[in-house]
């Protein structure tokens, strides 16, 4: 293999380039990214960066050591198509890149409110999503003009922005279409505990009522809910999830049902094409199905495995390597939330220590008497012990 194209230049794409060199590959690497910026870290965008406590420079993921990667950077260029057998990538600037191997790491994009128009593209001003650094800069500017802020969606991004905006002194309201926020990742009981962080701090959370429409002209002035309630708004943050960036693969023949489907290693059904990070739905032996995650740690670690599969070649056969135990964290109102494992509906929840009312506790999810996941709120040490235990079980599934 003499040339590899990595499509996507965020955490997973950079991790793939580093993994290629770390695993001894010395051919050419072309790194294609649609944003004009060098890879940067996204988690601070909803937190300290919004408060101007973290600079753009501090977000940079690359260090001086990355010079030695000898990467041909193609930033500000969007991949628009892939011929998977020729491994030919068509670019938005009319050019193309041909490579012996392809790593797909195109990530995900923020979902927009149906009918509201994309922020900054014909939609109302003052209506934002948060995914990129430019999104964060625009949101920061909008928040500077003061509140009220209405956050649509009480997921992690929305909750973090609500917490950050409150810290900046804004009047904040959170709206959630589901009866209980975060019921998907955490289950209803623990989702309700997390939602309690908002109300602890005087931020109303209106649940179970969808948004009917945004009010205003050139700039947003309010949000009307399905029950007729009107919430005044100077800024609206839409945090209703993300969609994998796989449209460009529509004609590639790759299986892109909710993400690029791969085996446990990150290999697609097409030889010499692998995928990793938010855009990939990799097979997980534990739950025995394809799972697409949007976890920072997966974007960092999956490329190592995917690159190993790429360099081993399609004839190496599928090994049984499993990915790392799913893990994610959030910070809201000064509280650290950590979650690890694979929770399923119907799992029971046991409070291992602390008290949810105190917003400091450890909860263990169980199925058939066995732990499946763990949630910690301001319990990093205890959480780490349980994460270790679950990781050992997780690895044991495949051996």
């Amino acid at each position, binding site marked *: 293999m003499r040339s590899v194209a990595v499509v996507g230049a965020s955490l997973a794409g950079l991790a793939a380039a580093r993994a290629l060199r770390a695993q001894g590959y010395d051919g050419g690497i072309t790194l294609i990214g649609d944003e004009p910026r060098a890879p940067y870290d996204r988690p601070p965008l909803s937190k300290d960066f919004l408060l101007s406590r973290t600079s753009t420079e501090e977000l940079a993921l690359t*260090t001086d050591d990355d010079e030695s990667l000898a990467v041909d950077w193609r930033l500000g260029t969007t991949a628009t198509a892939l011929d998977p057998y020729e491994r030919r990538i068509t670019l938005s600037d009319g050019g193309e890149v041909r490579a012996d191997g392809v790593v797909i790491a195109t990530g995900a994009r923020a979902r927009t409110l149906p009918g509201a128009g994309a922020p900054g593209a014909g939609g109302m001003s003052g209506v934002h999503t948060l995914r990129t650094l430019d999104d964060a800069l625009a949101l920061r500017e909008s928040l500077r003009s003061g509140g009220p802020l209405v956050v649509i969606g009480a997921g992690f991004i929305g909750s973090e922005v609500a917490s950050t905006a409150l810290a900046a002194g804004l009047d904040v309201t959170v709206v959630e279409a589901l009866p209980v926020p975060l019921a998907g990742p955490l289950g209803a009981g623990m989702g309700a505990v997390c939602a309690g962080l908002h109300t602890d701090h005087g931020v109303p959370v209106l649940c179970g009522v969808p948004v009917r429409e945004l009010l205003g002209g050139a700039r947003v002035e309010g949000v009307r809910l399905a029950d007729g309630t009107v919430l005044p708004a100077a800024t609206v943050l839409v945090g209703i999830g993300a969609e994998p960036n796989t449209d460009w693969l529509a004609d590639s023949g790759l299986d892109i049902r909710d993400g690029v489907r791969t085996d446990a290693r990150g290999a697609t059904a097409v030889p010499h094409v692998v995928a990793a990070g938010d855009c990939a739905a990799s097979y997980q032996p534990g739950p025995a199905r394809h799972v697409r995650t949007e976890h*920072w740690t997966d974007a*960092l670690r999956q490329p190592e495995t995917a690159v190993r599969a790429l360099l081993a070649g399609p004839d190496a056969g599928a090994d049984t390597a499993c990915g790392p135990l799913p893990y994610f964290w959030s910070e809201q109102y000064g509280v*650290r939330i950590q979650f690890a494992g694979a929770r399923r509906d119907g799992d029971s929840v046991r409070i291992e220590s602390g008290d949810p009312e105190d917003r400091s506790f450890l909860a263990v999810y169980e199925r058939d008497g066995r732990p499946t996941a763990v949630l910690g709120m301001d319990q*990093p040490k205890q959480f780490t012990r349980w994460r270790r235990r679950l990781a050992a079980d997780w690895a044991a599934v495949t051996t």
Partner: protein
Amino acid sequence: MEHSETLTREDTVLVACRIEDLPPGESVRVDAAEGTEAVAVFNADGELYAIDDTCTHQDASLADGWLEGCTVECPLHAACFDLRTGMPSGPPAKRPVRTHRVTVEDGVVRVHVAAPVGAL
């Protein structure tokens, strides 16, 4: 490394714990004495290592972190550090933590904390 330039200075010796309280895979935080910062001591498969406890990326205790081999992952943002060198081995941290010498005598684990650069 910063501390190598300060070897001529007097190290501060902190008592961490008894060795039986630090089995493999475990870590302990030793709170700061005057003129030092808190340090974290790890037992990585039988080898003891000490580093500054505070992550260089953002304020979090590395003693609460995830130990895997000779790497500790920060519990806040998953920044990784090599316990042997203090160097960041994964983003988002870009600056190293200081490493400190660990000794065990009569079952007592001690950390020899180098004086911070610029300290008298």
